[in-house]
């Protein structure tokens, strides 16, 4: 029904609009200029009424020729599009544009006078850096695209729009650098996106989950970032990006686990420091996931593995604790997770108090009361801190930590090994749009190890990562280097 062509008679148009749009925030403004009737259709909360008045109503009053060309030339609009169906008119209207219907014309003009309130560009709370750009994406698609365009001025940066959501009609911008992104990757993503029929896209995570092959997996298959500098760098490596209107988290595909271990700071600081920090992150993650499980398995099954002095310390500290080692660890972990959840949800001023009460009072009191032991509390605290060294993977790692803890409590150290091997087998088989998520480690791509755990010096990363299969291999040329070689 909505694909119906726009009627020539304005009365019919208005009748159609009134019949089909019965929402109080949608305005139909009728006016005549020298016996020629016009109708403006716009959403009150999304349109700039001053601009409509100044650039449409006032100029139109001055014209004598009412042909479409003349009207188009008279109106001052940053964006103007000719529409022929009601469906197009509705889409443009709900997107914030103003639609002008002219009596006697079987078309309408979409005029770009959007105006709505939005959050200003600020440093994203999830990826704070010491060095480098501090801008972060916001909820507005056009603002996000401007942040991207400001960084990539090339005509090769292609942006294609697609609408997803039966009712929300959320706009998704598919961004890629033509000639750099792997051939066929964009088409693959678009194909997959077209298979999604959903009422509303509340956040980009909906799209990410849809693009994920293994829906029950605890591991990601789509990368996310809130920072335009990281997003740009990922596009330049050959990935395809998705910016979803209404979400500050932009998506990138293909995803490799390694990218979450790489922070923006690594690229703006000393290579030595970056390498050391990456190794630290890796160890911290291993500690976060494995330490509670290893401690429980040692307490339950492998006391002989502990040095005698350490063993005596543990024995003294667990003396009189009513809970079993695994239940004690599980209980402490549950308390920690509850505190964590509460401190995120609570208002900031209350959150501070909760931290003090939870961290100091509750912990100290629980140990003194003999409910939990000091080593257990310390292990959970260390694990909790280590978990946040890779903030993008906190959810995955916390689930893994729990799994390892349960396995350790049931099967001990060898159970941990078996679960670790299971996770490794899962990870080496997982792929994100044909790219193994464990690349460049499995499969081993030696050339890509210049920016893996080891962070190469500036000038070492001459080529784009092989992992993403870009045909355009070179991303950097330092001509003096070649010159030096020739002279030699």
């Amino acid at each position, binding site marked *: 029904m909505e694909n119906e062509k726009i009627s020539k008679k304005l009365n019919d148009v208005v009748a159609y609009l009134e019949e089909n749009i019965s929402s109080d925030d949608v305005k139909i403004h009728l006016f005549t200029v020298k016996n020629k009737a016009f109708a403006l259709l716009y959403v009150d909360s999304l349109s700039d009424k001053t601009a409509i008045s100044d650039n449409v109503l006032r100029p139109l009053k001055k014209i004598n020729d009412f042909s479409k060309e003349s009207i188009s030339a008279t109106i001052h609009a940053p964006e103007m599009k000719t529409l022929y169906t009601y469906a197009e008119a509705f889409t443009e209207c709900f997107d914030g544009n103003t639609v002008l219907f002219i009596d006697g014309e079987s078309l309408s003009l979409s005029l770009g006078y959007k105006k709505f309130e939005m959050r200003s560009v600020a440093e994203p709370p999830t990826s704070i850096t010491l060095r480098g750009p501090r801008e972060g994406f916001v909820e507005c698609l056009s603002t996000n695209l401007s942040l991207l365009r400001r960084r990539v001025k090339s005509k090769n940066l292609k942006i294609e729009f697609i609408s997803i959501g039966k009712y929300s009609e959320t706009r998704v911008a598919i961004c890629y650098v033509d000639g750099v992104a792997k051939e066929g990757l964009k088409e693959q993503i678009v194909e997959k996106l077209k298979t999604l029929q959903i009422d509303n896209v509340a956040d980009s995570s909906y799209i990410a989950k849809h693009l994920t092959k293994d829906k029950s997996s605890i591991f990601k298959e789509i990368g996310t970032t809130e920072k335009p500098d990281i997003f740009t760098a990922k596009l330049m490596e050959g990935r395809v990006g998705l910016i979803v209107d209404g979400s500050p988290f932009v998506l990138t595909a293909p995803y490799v686990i390694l990218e979450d271990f790489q922070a923006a700071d690594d690229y703006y600081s000393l290579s030595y420091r970056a390498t050391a920090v990456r190794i630290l992150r890796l160890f911290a993650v291993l500690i976060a996931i494995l330490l509670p499980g290893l401690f429980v398995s040692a307490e*339950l*099954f*492998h*006391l*002989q*593995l*502990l*040095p*005698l002095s*350490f063993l005596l310390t543990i024995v003294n500290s667990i003396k009189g604790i009513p809970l079993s080692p695994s239940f004690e660890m599980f209980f402490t972990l549950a308390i920690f997770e509850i505190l964590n959840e509460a401190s995120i949800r609570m208002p900031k001023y209350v959150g501070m108090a909760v931290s003090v009460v939870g961290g100091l009072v509750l912990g100290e009191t629980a140990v003194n009361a003999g409910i939990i032991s000091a080593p257990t509390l310390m292990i959970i605290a260390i694990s909790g801190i280590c978990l946040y060294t890779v903030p993008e993977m906190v959810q995955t790692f916390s689930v893994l930590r729990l799994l390892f803890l349960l396995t350790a409590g049931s*099967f*001990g*150290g*060898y*159970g941990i*090994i*078996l679960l*670790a*091997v*299971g996770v*490794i*087998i899962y990870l*080496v*088989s997982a792929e994100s749009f044909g790219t*193994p998520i*464990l690349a460049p*480690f*499995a*499969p*081993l791509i030696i050339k890509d190890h210049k920016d893996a755990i080891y962070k190469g010096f500036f000038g070492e990363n001459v080529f784009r990562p092989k992992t993403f299969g870009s045909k355009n291999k070179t991303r950097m040329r330092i001509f003096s280097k070649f010159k030096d070689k020739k002279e030699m």
Partner: protein
Amino acid sequence: MNYPLKTRQIALFFIAFLPVVKMFTMPKSAAEACNEDMWISILLCLIIDYATILALIKINKTHQKPFYDILKDRFGTITAKTIFFVYFLFFMIKAFTPIFELRNFVQNSFYSTSLRTFPFVPFFILSVYFCTKKYSVLGRLSDLLWIMTVLGVSLILFLSIANADFGAIMPIFNNGLNIFKGSYFITPWFTDASYLLFMIGFFKHEEKTTLKLSLAFLAHGIIILLFSIVFYCSFTFVAKREFFPLSEIAKYSGVINAIGRFDYIAILIILISNTVSVALPLYFATKTLSMIIPIKNNVIIPIIINVSHLIIATFFERYQQFIIAIIHLNLSPVMLCLGNIAPFLLLFIKPKKADFTNNKALLKRSA
């Protein structure tokens, strides 16, 4: 053509998975047969395996198609399936010793103080999962886990080498024909070329394939020899009584006296690749059986194979010594024939004009 495996991955497969499975009771068994000449027995087995590997590299170069296709083209489907069934039995038998060894090792080293017996069911659950995976996953596992093997073995050797008295392996050839007796007994631990037999046609022959695989096999040989020699030199004539060299070899290190069983970190690291290594015969048994009975659901065959081994490991535990004795004393020649001699026979089969449609379809299934 897109091959599921790369030469590099097969080379790393040799380093990652072949040495670790021979570190449980193999050195002790070799020492039992020929004392200080045990390393010569091991060397003999390594040489036989290496010769077979060279032959298989040549076969891969000339045929460029999987083992099943070579047999089918030359002898027809029924013969090919029959031979695959024989190899299925071969892998099922080959799996016994490492599974028993791993179970005993884990029980004795990790659960000696706990009252209950370690339940081995999780291992078979993991093995079922592993057996459903394709060759490309095995290749990627090799890419990742070789470092674990190298790291773990290096740490163990670093901790134990100071206690070894290398004079203990002298004089050489002191045990005469017992060297061959040792080789005969430890043969089922080797016959590793059989794995490569099932990988031919799944990797491209390149200019440096022979060199890469030879170097990797050499590295694997060095690891095994070094480990066995250090083990014998640490325990000398009582080596034959040390059932689990892996947990015993570094026990008397000075570092351990100071900070506790530090060597268990190395053992845990080795156990990661060892777990995959122990499941390898079951993996290849799955591959062979799925060629004989092509079932769409790729979980059924791994379940059948693993459950049958679980039943044996659980209910026939008291007969494990008997089963191992039969395998190593009676079935060694059979293992040698299937693992080392049979692949040589493939050299005499002339390649038919390549049937690329079949080969492509097979590669696609395994990619």
